[in-house]
Each structure stands twice: as C-alpha cells, then as structure tokens.
C-alpha cells in the first residue's frame, strides 16, 4: 500500500534526527581516535660495547725476551647498558699464525688489580656491572715470550672476541 504524504514526511524527519544524533555523537568519537593517538614506548634490554682500538701491536726487545713477557698494553672497553651486564673474553682459534704454532694461552689478560689469566677458547668474565653509560673497563694484555721458541718473525692472533652480555 502506498505511503501517504504525511507518513513519508514523518519518516524523513525521524531519519534526519537519527543522522543528526550520529553526527553529534559518532563523529567526535571518530575524530578523537585520529587526532589524539596513544603512545607506546617499548624499551628493550640493551647492552653495547665499543673498543678504543681494533688491534694491539707488540715489538718486544731483549729485556722483554729475558723477562719472558712483553710489556703490557691496555685496551679500553666502553660499556653502555640499561640492564645488568658482563664483559667476557675468549679466543677464537687455538694457535697464532706465525713461524710456529704459538698457543692462544700465551696471551694473558687481566682486568683491575688481579693477576693475569691465560686466554682460552672458553669465555671468561672480565667485569660485571649494572646500567651505565660509557663505563670504561681497562683490559690489560701481555704476551708470554720464550727465547727458544719465539724465533724472529711476525706473529698474529686473529682474534680475541670481546662481548658484553647478560651476566
């Protein structure tokens, strides 16, 4: 049955009211989600390491040969972390490259006031700490020498792995 004119006009008025209500209620809600976003900051545990140089060069003289050790050299490791950390060292190969198979254990290191420790292929903890920014950790190195074995030549050890990881 066809809708009468009055009834059609009333239906259109109702639709207009509902539409107006939606504009008043719905649009501001939509506008809020677009213009005022929430911020989410996810901070992971981060540990960073920086060494002050990438190689150490030793040229021992007679006194060092006689002493059985090179003079020590210091490598500065700078640690930045927002969590607990441990600085670890390890050798990567068992022997040096050179005139003979000089063992990795001829590299000795220490951190702080303790005694020297022979480098091995197993990780050793040199230092530990908490959150810090550019904390300097001095690593002292010296090389064992032997008159009879260490004949003249170039000896290279590539390389010592230094990591800062979780304790």
């Amino acid at each position: 049955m066809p809708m009468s004119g009055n009834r059609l006009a009333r239906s259109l008025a109702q639709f207009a009211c509902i539409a107006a209500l939606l504009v008043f209620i719905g649009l501001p809600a939509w506008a809020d989600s677009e213009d005022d976003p929430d911020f989410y900051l996810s901070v992971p545990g981060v540990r960073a390491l920086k060494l002050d140089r990438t190689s150490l060069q030793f040229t021992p003289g007679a006194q060092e040969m006689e002493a059985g050790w090179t003079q020590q050299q210091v490598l500065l490791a700078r640690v930045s972390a927002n969590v607990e950390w441990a600085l670890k060292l390890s050798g990567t190969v068992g022997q040096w490259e050179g005139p003979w198979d000089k063992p990795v254990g001829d590299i000795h290191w220490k951190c702080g006031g303790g005694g020297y420790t022979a480098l091995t292929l197993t990780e050793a903890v040199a230092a530990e700490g908490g959150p810090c920014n550019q904390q300097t950790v001095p690593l002292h190195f010296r090389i064992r020498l032997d008159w009879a074995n260490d004949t003249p030549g170039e000896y290279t050890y590539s390389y010592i792995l230094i990591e800062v990881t979780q304790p």
Partner: protein
Amino acid sequence: MKPHLLLLLALLLMLTVAPAARASGTDSVEISVTINEILVVEYVGDDPVEFDVTADDLNEHSKALINQGSINWWSNTAPWTVYVKRTCWDLENYGEDGGVELQVKYGPPDYDNGQNWQLVGCEDHHPSYDHDGEAWVEPYGFPWVFSPDGDDDGIGNGTFTGIDWKVKKLDWNIPPDTYTCTVTFTIAPD
C-alpha cells in the same frame, strides 16, 4: 591460516625478536707480535781485570788470570758468533801499542792445551801481530757451552764459563806505569 595472517605473525615475531638481538654487544681485537733478531751478550766478572805484573812475569813474558768471569748470551736466532776486541794500550811512550798482546780463553782448565787462547785484537789493527783485529768465541757445539734447552743449537741463552785473560810479550823494557785498555764483547749473526 591465511597468507596475510602469516605475514602479520611474522612481523610481530620480528618486532619481538629484534630488541633481543640488540641486547648484547660484540667486538674483537687482533694481536700481533713482531719479534726481531735479538742477540745479547754480557761479560760478568771483575771490572777492571788487573794484571799485577811481577819480575817473574817479565822473565816469562806473560801473565795469566784464570777463571775471571763469564760471558752470558741470549739469542733467538742462530748461528752467531761472539766477537771480542779492545782498544789499544795507552802506551804513549812505548812504541805502537806497546807490543803487549791480550788473549782470552774460556772453558775449564783441562781444555787449556795452549790452543784455545784467542788474540784480542786492538782496534788499530796493529799489523805486526794482529792480522784480523778480532778474537772470536765459538757460538756453539763445544762441550762446555751451556744451552738451557739442551740441544746446543745456539738459541735460547747460556754462559761461557771460566773466562781467562792473559797478557803476552811482556818485557823488561816496558816502563813502569799503569796501562789500560777496554775490551768489548759483541754478538752478531753469522
């Protein structure tokens, strides 16, 4: 599972894993050692070595001082030789170098058969008695050479023990005085 859901899951996993990968720092350092040829020799003993010459010495034209010191050596290369030389005697009024010879020997006395004495040449290389200007000490291979690794290969360190000194060609016509010279030991690769 739909492909776009898999992709979304992978992205989520990447976002989850990436911070963990930054959770540690790694670096490395290379170590190199340059070992040059190193040879060292030193004399250990009385300094100065004093010859107190007597009438008997003048009559016999020589005087020896036995077991006066040692020569220590260190070397990471071989073969090598220890050379001994001296300055000339300060005999201003007694001809050219005074004609007095200095000799050196090492080893225990039983090796003293008269053949082991070596002439220590004057740096001026006086031609009348010193044709090469240097005495020498055998680097290795002699039974009295001490080598720590036991193989007498001249690498390592050791000692020439029992260094003896002798002056020869003493004569009554040498004016009374104190005469000096300086002896130098050097070690060099052959």
